[in-house]
């Protein structure tokens, strides 16, 4: 990749919030001059930003600002919607994910997703986690059992379900179902996990468990999360991007966005004085 391209990509400014050595230049996920239209509606306008590996990047902004749309671009979920046109480029690990030869199914293995509403399959807890692994060709037996256990351990759910792995996933609480969905997402060992308001339907205790889990998961995964909860973004993310009306207004370390944003619109949004 040329320096010229790098210079066009907006990297978060300010000191690194994660405390670890942050990649100095090359972002893991690079979005450059991304434009997205839903029919006549221009939903994302010239978005350029670079997200670092193994950090949590939060997307914030009012409803309709384009943050979920951008999130869905990262695993090409928008391809499934009629009338969507996408311009610009998006690279993960230096590879253009919109190149013609990209296998979208493969891409979605590398970029997992967790939605606002937990969506376990109407199957057992075990089968939910094993689902993607079986599609990948893993046969039942010790290897699959170990992979299911490891995913449930990583999702901080193992202790709660280890004695009822073969009961229906629909019998779990909302917070447990969401952690099961995270276990299912990480079972296939993606590099990136996209989360679209993963805790917005949960009570504060279940939310806190999900947030703790996200902080654990970032040791192994790159996480991009959409949230309407400013305090949640402040608690769990390293970098934050603020969007408004399809534009990226400000992208900086989370510490900077929530203590001293540069742009007045960001300040007005995070202090609740927008509009």
């Amino acid at each position: 990749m040329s320096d010229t391209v790098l210079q066009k990509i907006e990297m978060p400014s300010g000191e690194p919030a994660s405390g670890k050595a942050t990649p100095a230049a090359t972002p893991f996920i690079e979005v450059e001059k991304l434009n997205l239209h839903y029919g006549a509606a221009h939903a994302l306008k010239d978005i350029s930003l670079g997200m670092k590996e193994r950090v949590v990047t939060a997307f914030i902004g009012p409803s309709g600002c384009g943050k979920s749309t951008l999130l869905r671009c990262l695993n090409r979920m928008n391809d499934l919607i009629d009338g969507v046109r996408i311009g610009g480029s998006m690279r993960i690990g230096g590879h253009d994910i919109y190149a013609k030869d990209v296998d979208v199914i493969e891409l979605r293995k590398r970029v997992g997703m967790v939605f606002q509403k937990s969506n376990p399959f109407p199957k057992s807890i075990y089968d939910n986690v094993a689902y993607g692994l079986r599609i990948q060709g893993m046969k039942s037996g010790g290897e699959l059992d170990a992979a299911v256990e490891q995913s449930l351990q990583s999702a901080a759910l193992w202790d709660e379900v280890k004695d009822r792995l073969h009961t229906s996933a629909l019998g779990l609480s909302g917070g447990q179902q969401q952690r099961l969905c995270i276990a299912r997402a990480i079972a296939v060992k993606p590099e990136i996990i996209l989360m679209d308001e993963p805790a917005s339907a949960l009570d504060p205790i279940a939310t806190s468990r999900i947030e703790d889990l996200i902080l654990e998961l970032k040791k192994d995964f790159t996480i991009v999360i959409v949230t309407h909860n400013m305090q949640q973004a402040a608690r769990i993310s390293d970098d934050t991007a603020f969007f408004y009306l399809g534009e990226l207004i400000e992208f900086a370390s989370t510490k900077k966005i929530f203590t001293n944003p540069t742009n007045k619109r960001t300040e007005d949004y995070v202090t609740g004085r927008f509009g």
Partner: protein
Amino acid sequence: MEHHFDQELKALKDRLLTMASHAETAVNRAVDALVNRNLELALQVRVDDEVLDQFEIEIDELAINLLSKAPLASDLRLVTMAMKLSQNLERVGDEAAKIAKRARDLSKEPPLKLNLEIPRMSSLALGLLKSSLDAFVNRDSVAARALIPRDKEINAMHKQIQSQLIAHMKESPDNIARSLNLLVAVKSLERIADHAKNIAEEVVFLYDAEDIRHAEK
């Protein structure tokens, strides 16, 4: 329609400004009592100090209540700054009370025959406090930054007066009690200037989001 949160922030700021005004009055009275040997004013400062103590508690309560609502960005800076400002103002009140107590004792004794720059030091310390509070009221971080070096002049003056008083005590035991009272009073003036400098630094943090404390070290 103004948000409830904005109304609460405004209430916090109003209480801070009222507290600042009381602190300034307390220092004014204490300095006047010391310089002009005014016993009546010295007695009033004790009441001022009690009022400032109550303000500190009240402002902390308001700030904690606001923190529970998770303010961010400039709101967060205002709330945290309010807690520090009220603490500094409460300590200004304590120092004013110490000066007043010494002024009361000194007013009962004949004045020391010594040319000390206490009126000038008092005026500088009071001026620094007033200017730092003005910078807060006027949202003027540039003025606040410009105030910070003025503390050094007051520190130098404190050292000079201290040396004069120590020398004076060495001359005669009769001078010791009065000199000690003055030593305590000028130390309090020096501390008031320190608190004024702290306030100026907090004003810079509030309006520029820049922490300039301990920059010289």
